[in-house]
């Protein structure tokens, strides 16, 4: 994969206005961790990416075949499809700092 420096590190504010963040949140049933992850993600997006994000919640209990595509092992897993490169964050997203770092919304 060819990666330009700009793709790897994209600090907040360097985002173009038209960029839409596409994210997938994988869960397996309505568990406590899943519900926490959904709530945390929604809150973060509203705070940092208002109006330019799209979240798809995938329940693997309903769509087990989708686990293969994004190589999902841990639940919950958040996958940032866009902007590239792809990012994976596991856990219930309760550690906000690490989520922001993981999503490149904050410098590492």
């Amino acid at each position, binding site marked *: 994969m060819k990666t330009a420096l700009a793709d790897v590190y994209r600090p907040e504010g360097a985002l173009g206005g038209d960029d839409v963040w596409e994210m997938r949140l994988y869960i397996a049933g309505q568990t406590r*961790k899943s519900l*926490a992850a959904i709530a945390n993600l929604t809150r973060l997006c509203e705070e940092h990416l208002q109006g330019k994000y799209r979240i798809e919640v995938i329940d693997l209990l309903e769509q087990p*075949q989708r686990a*293969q595509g994004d190589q999902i*092992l*841990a639940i919950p897993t958040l996958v940032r499809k866009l902007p590239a490169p*792809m990012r994976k964050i*596991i*856990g219930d997203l309760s550690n906000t700092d690490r*989520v922001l770092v993981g999503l490149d919304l904050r410098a590492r």
Partner: protein
Amino acid sequence: MSQPVNETPPAPRGIEKAPTGIRGFDEITQGGLPRGRPTLVCGSAGCGKTLFGLEFLVRGATQFDEPGAIVSFEENIEELTQNVASLGFDLDELVAQKKLVIDYVHVERSEIEETGEYDLDGLFVRLAYTIDSIGAKRIVLDTLEALFAALPNEGILRAELRRLFRWLKDRGVTAVITGERGDGALTRRGLEEYVSDCVILLEQRVRERVATRYLRVVKYRGTSHGTNEYPFLVQEDGISVLPVTSLGLTHVASDERISTGIPRLDAMLGGKGLYRGSSVLLSGTAGTGKTSLSAYLVAAACKRGERVLYFAFEESQSQIIRNMRSIGVDLKPYVDGGLLRYQTARPTLFGLEMHLATIHRQVDEFGPSMVVVDPITNFMAIGSELEVSSMLMRLIDFLKSRLITGVFTSLTGGGNALERTDVGVSSLMDTWLLVRFLEGNGERNRGLYVLKSRGMQHSNQVREYVLSERGIELLDVYAGSSGVLTGAARLAQEAKERAEAQLRLQEMERKQRELERKRALLEAQIAAMRAQFEAEEAEMTTTSREHAQFEKELSRDREDLARARHADAARDTTHVHVNLNGGAE
């Protein structure tokens, strides 16, 4: 093994087992892996863990109608398919037939940020989905340890692994989990902690530059199993585990006797030759004609229309055929006619176990009624005495179970005791023929002994073994006061005996004559002595007469003297004489 080994397939008692279809493995474990439970297969890199798992799945799918799933954490589908294509496993085909499913789980730690609590439900969902997609009864996880590298929180991971194994058991799938060998532990990440039913250890060791793989069942709960280390091979058609005693001693012995092709040797062997399916050891020092003797056995078998498989480790096929022609045995028609097959290779080309497996495969393929291994001593170059002996034991067991006569030649070292060496296999042999040189008189001649032959009255005599263009001849040896004589010495001895007999006769006559002469001499001597005695006697008579004459004359002289002295001679004389005698004066 405590259970009788002739129950094949062994009746599962207690634990139900899933046969792996891996050659030899099901015998060791008496049926295979524990059905519906996880088994840990551990070993260092390159020892065949993945292959073991794959063969378990492929055999399950093709032979036991149990579809299988492989969840690979290390190799992707293409890599796996390519790796086992050389073993004749067509994974693509099996996948197309819905008998196999491959799921490649790839995780890179660099992609993952941990932001809170999580579990491995994703993996469980994937496994469940994979298993359900074809109704898999078997699953291989290769290798779970990749998860430790991928996921940051070991605490969560361990808890989840414990749950995973529980879950696999609940699903009732027969699982194989591979694990990398760790220092001082079975696996690097301690996976053995979670798998308590069955643990199999694979190892690869290099000895004398020959690598051999070994398999050991470390643990198998609820079943008896072979605890030995079993060598195993990765061959063109999969894994072969070679259990030392897989066949046991339950083979049926044949009463049929087969000729050795040498009538006098048959005569030495109870008059009828060898038992079919027995093991024969031909031993001797270099150049004693072991190969020639085996060529006779081979020719005799081929003449009966039987197939012979000949493993030659010293000579090429054409060389053997040429050499045997020189003693009047033409093997070429049998080779051309497909009755005789030569398998020539240097022993050092492969490891011992590879040789054994090669022999197994060739025997399976060719279906001979006699197998010749010429010589077994060359195996010593690639294994210790114990290993060679163990390998030969398994080979002999194998041949006996098929009622194949095994002929093994063995080179005895010059310095060693003739009856010692033979790589400690003589006890495995039913018949042992020893060819040795009998030296003397500047010649070396061959002597053939039947050291043992089980189940028959065999000859205890030495025969002189003569190789000529007429072939092998067994002659009586001369056994006399000067020891055992052969060859020219035997001929010489026979001539000498004749000469000696002649000589003894002449000597007798001479002695007779001498006696006669002595008798004549003695008689002459007696005559001479008698003559002498008579002469002496005659002389004595003369002397005594002379003496009387002398006395008479003396007396007369004295009288004459007295008369001359005018004395009363007679009285005076008497008086003086008395005085003198009394000594009283």
